[in-house]
């Protein structure tokens, strides 16, 4: 019905700009040539609209599309998958801009633009991204409104204001849908896992791995304790256990799954709830030693806890731990043998040193004590240790003597094995910071840590943390105390004598935590929990549908009534309104216009009684007469002129 005339320069400019905004966060991930094609397509389309040129023919478009697809295949080595899919969607939608000939094409671009907004959430679901995408949606709706203003060119305000109101009015109903729409736990089909690097621990450790992590201020997980938060020295968040020594570093054994952990508890259970940020691995973290397991997790023989699916969305679980325990005190030598193997070809001096120590200190306890003393005396804790060569432990122990937790844990475990004591490296996080606003313990990536476990007869596996010997501050007071100011956050804290920034940082973290709890982490379980809170246990879909319908009725109907009530209020024309404001201004000077007094009579009275205003008032009133009694109702310019003059009028 409405044809190409809708593709005006203004409309096209808005559409291209909105596309630019929604694509911007993707640029860091796109191949450079894809970004260049998008930019060129946008600029080209704008040029076409500006100069009234023809859009390129299908042969050119087909050629470009084919080249893009070929380029994507070269770049990604496949044409299906998330990364390549997102890239193709972005570039093809930009090309669609060039193929846009009718209003209907523009609608397609705008609606698929909403889909582009969604693809951004694949990579980030932070508050910031949410707000940014809201702005993008606002721009798209404003663009949509421009396309539906058929006979007149809308101003920027004419686009943004109605679009903004429309979105604001939709928010109550959106909230109802969000909480009451029956959630299905995804995925509906298996999602190909693209290699998407996220900060976090991995299944191996070589020198330098964890110190890299320590520079990340990203939150790893947040914990809510049922009772008091335990001492910092007890906050060992157990993660991947690395039992295999392999020359340069340590790797994980394929540990068999077990039904439950067997151990003797020596202290009461601590209960808490962990909300983990996605890290795309299966590790789940719990305080040493976890007592109960979340439903969708499994246990491995070396006291590891694993999720059945990679944690690629926010994951929350409730769990308990015993902080003092005795495990596997009665293990047989056969079982322990694998914790005695090591690579004999590397680090010869370390191995020789271990064997030598064993002869000097036949009692493992004395051996451990002696080694701790050595670490304490001779070694320095640093975040930036020197690079190490082919025999890293030799170079570290007998050369540089500068290291981070992975150096201490790795070298200690190797010495123990060489000395014939079963040992393994445990990685995870140590400590955490209590946010006084949310009362939650926040564990950041910078708190990643590696420590060791050694097996002693009758005592079983014991935790030994050689880092503690080198830098007790690290364990007692956390990373920032051990290293001094590092990174932006700590510098900031250091400079922040008044504590304002710190409390802002805490508040922001608390807001993020609530955001995670109520928005990002709101899933099927949370929804069930919410209905239980309403007093409806085991909610079924029928009840949920009733609630949803009721909620939509209340939110949508309520908003509708308000809207219609506003619509049914009588409005004065802008011209009359401006004239009344003008009269009121003069009225404040004591010259009140009588109801029956026409504008010309009023002007005469102004001339007599307030001559100082006369010249200005005459201009305004002449413009009013021209606007009010204009020969044509469509005479916009005279109305606009009068409103401007009336607004500028200042009584002398």
């Amino acid at each position, binding site marked *: 019905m409405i044809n190409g005339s809708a593709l005006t320069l203004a409309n096209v400019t808005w559409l291209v700009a909105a596309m630019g905004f929604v694509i911007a966060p993707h640029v860091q991930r796109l191949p450079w040539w894809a970004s260049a094609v998008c930019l060129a397509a946008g600029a080209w389309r704008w040029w076409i609209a500006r100069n009234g040129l023809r859009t390129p023919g299908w042969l050119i478009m087909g050629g470009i599309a084919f080249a893009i697809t070929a380029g994507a295949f070269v770049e990604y080595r496949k044409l299906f998958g998330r990364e390549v899919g997102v890239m193709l969607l972005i570039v093809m939608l930009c090309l669609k801009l060039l193929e846009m000939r009718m209003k209907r094409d523009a609608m397609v671009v705008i609606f698929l633009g909403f889909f582009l907004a969604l693809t951004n959430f694949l990579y980030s679901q932070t508050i910031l991204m949410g707000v940014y995408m809201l702005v993008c949606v606002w721009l798209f709706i404003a663009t949509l409104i421009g396309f539906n203003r058929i006979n007149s060119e809308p101003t920027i305000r004419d686009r943004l204001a109605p679009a903004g109101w429309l979105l604001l009015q939709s928010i109550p109903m959106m909230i109802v849908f*969000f909480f009451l729409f029956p959630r299905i736990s995804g995925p509906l089909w298996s999602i190909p896992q693209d290699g998407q690097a996220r900060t976090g621990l991995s299944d191996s450790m070589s020198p330098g791995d964890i110190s890299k992590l320590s520079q990340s201020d990203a939150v790893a997980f947040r914990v809510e304790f049922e009772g008091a938060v335990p001492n910092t020295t007890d906050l060992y968040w157990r993660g991947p256990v690395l039992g295999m020594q392999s020359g340069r570093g340590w790797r994980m054994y394929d540990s068999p799954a077990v039904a439950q952990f067997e151990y003797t508890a020596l202290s009461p259970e601590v209960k808490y709830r962990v909300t983990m940020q996605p890290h795309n691995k299966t590790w789940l973290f719990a305080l040493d030693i976890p007592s109960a397991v979340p439903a969708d997790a499994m246990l491995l023989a070396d006291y590891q806890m694993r999720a059945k699916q990679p944690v690629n969305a926010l994951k929350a679980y409730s769990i308990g731990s015993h902080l003092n325990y005795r495990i596997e005190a009665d293990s047989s030598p056969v079982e322990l043998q694998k914790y005695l193997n090591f690579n004999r070809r590397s680090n010869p001096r370390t191995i020789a040193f271990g064997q030598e120590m064993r002869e000097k200190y036949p009692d493992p306890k004395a051996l451990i004590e002696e080694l701790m003393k050595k670490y304490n005396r001779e070694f320095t804790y640093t975040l930036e240790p020197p690079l190490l060569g082919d025999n890293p432990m030799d170079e570290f122990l007998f050369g540089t003597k500068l290291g981070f937790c992975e150096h201490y844990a790795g070298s200690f475990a190797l010495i123990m094995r060489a000395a014939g004591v079963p040992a393994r490296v445990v990685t995870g996080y140590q400590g955490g910071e209590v946010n006084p606003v949310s009362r939650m313990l926040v564990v950041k990536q910078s708190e990643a840590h590696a420590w060791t476990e050694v097996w002693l007869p009758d005592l079983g596996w014991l935790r030994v943390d050689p880092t503690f010997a080198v830098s007790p501050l690290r364990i007692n007071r956390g990373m920032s105390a051990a290293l001094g100011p590092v990174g932006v956050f700590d510098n900031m804290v250091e400079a922040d004598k008044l504590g304002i920034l710190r409390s802002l940082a805490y508040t922001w973290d608390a807001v993020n935590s609530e955001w995670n709890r109520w928005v990002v982490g709101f899933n099927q379980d949370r929804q069930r929990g919410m209905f239980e809170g309403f007093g409806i246990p085991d909610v079924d879909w029928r009840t949920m549908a009733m609630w949803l319908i009721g909620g939509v009725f209340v939110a949508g109907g309520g908003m509708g009534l308000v809207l219609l009530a506003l619509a049914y209020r009588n409005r004065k024309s802008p011209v009359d309104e401006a004239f009344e404001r003008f009269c009121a201004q003069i009225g404040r000077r004591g010259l009140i216009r009588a109801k029956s007094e026409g504008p010309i009579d009023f002007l005469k009275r102004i001339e007599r009684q307030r001559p100082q205003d006369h010249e200005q008032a005459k201009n305004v009133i002449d413009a009013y007469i021209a606007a009010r009694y204009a020969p044509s109702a469509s005479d916009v310019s005279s109305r606009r002129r009068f409103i401007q003059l009336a607004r500028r009028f200042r009584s002398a």
Partner: protein
Amino acid sequence: MGDFSFALRQRISDWTFRARIPEQPPVVLTQKRIFIIPTRTGYFFAFVLVLLLIASVNYVLSLGFLLTFLLASMGGMSMLHTFRNLARLSIFPGRTEPTFAGDVAHFHLVIHNPGVARFSVGVKRAKLRDAEPTFGDITPGGSSNLSLSIMAESRGLMPCGRLEIFTEYPVGLFHAWSYVGFDMTCLVYPKPDPGAGALPISATGNGEGNIPVAGDEEFQSLRAYRAGDTLRQIAWKALAREQGLLVKEFGTTTSADLWLDYAALVGFGAEQRLARLTWWVLEAERALVPYGLKLPGVTIPPSMGRQHRDKCLERLALYGLQDGAAA
């Protein structure tokens, strides 16, 4: 609109507006009269929403759910806005100027808006697939004009029929419309036939040859200007001498008046005769020749001027038609 929705809307309108034509002005668009249905764009939008929902479920994107639900709510709310864009408008019929067959007739509607500003309100002839719409914005607290141009096919009184007032503002997901059926007509004169040639001076009876010819500058007197006088009659020189607006009067110096006679056009069909007579009426006006019109049963004595012309053309337009309905 798709075939289906078009057919459906016709059915609904037939059923709802039975025997309501003609309506008395003003017609106020109340919720009883306004219909609303999703557009094709609206259905496509719903399809995109489903895609967004599936993607959100599959990739466990909570913010995707938020986006999907925000857009769904926006769609729902836009229905109210589209409805509101028509609600409470009062429609009055405006003046319609006569036109010639083959030309365009302009029907005017005056729309009064007591509420907020309305944008992109369209009007078109109802029940016509390819009816060309006209759009306008309606200022708040005042009246605006919307005019609809319709091709006048044949002479007679052309009714504009039922009009559809509609809008898809603000986002084009819904089509809201209402029908108004005023008794608005446009007088359509026959299409002038240039084939008629020069004025039928020889056919004027006694043929004494003292008939004024076109371009004759001999005028009898000056008289004051009256509404309907053509520009060519104005005495510009007199005006330049600041004697006021005067009109040159061409006296009936001729004894033989020019009669445009239907019966004299032997050998032509009725419509052809009317078309030729129309051409001559216009020619005579142009040449400033007084003329009379004779139709079977109608005789208009010779005269000149706008009013005379309109009277003649009206007789020609309505000749032989019952109730003035278009032929």
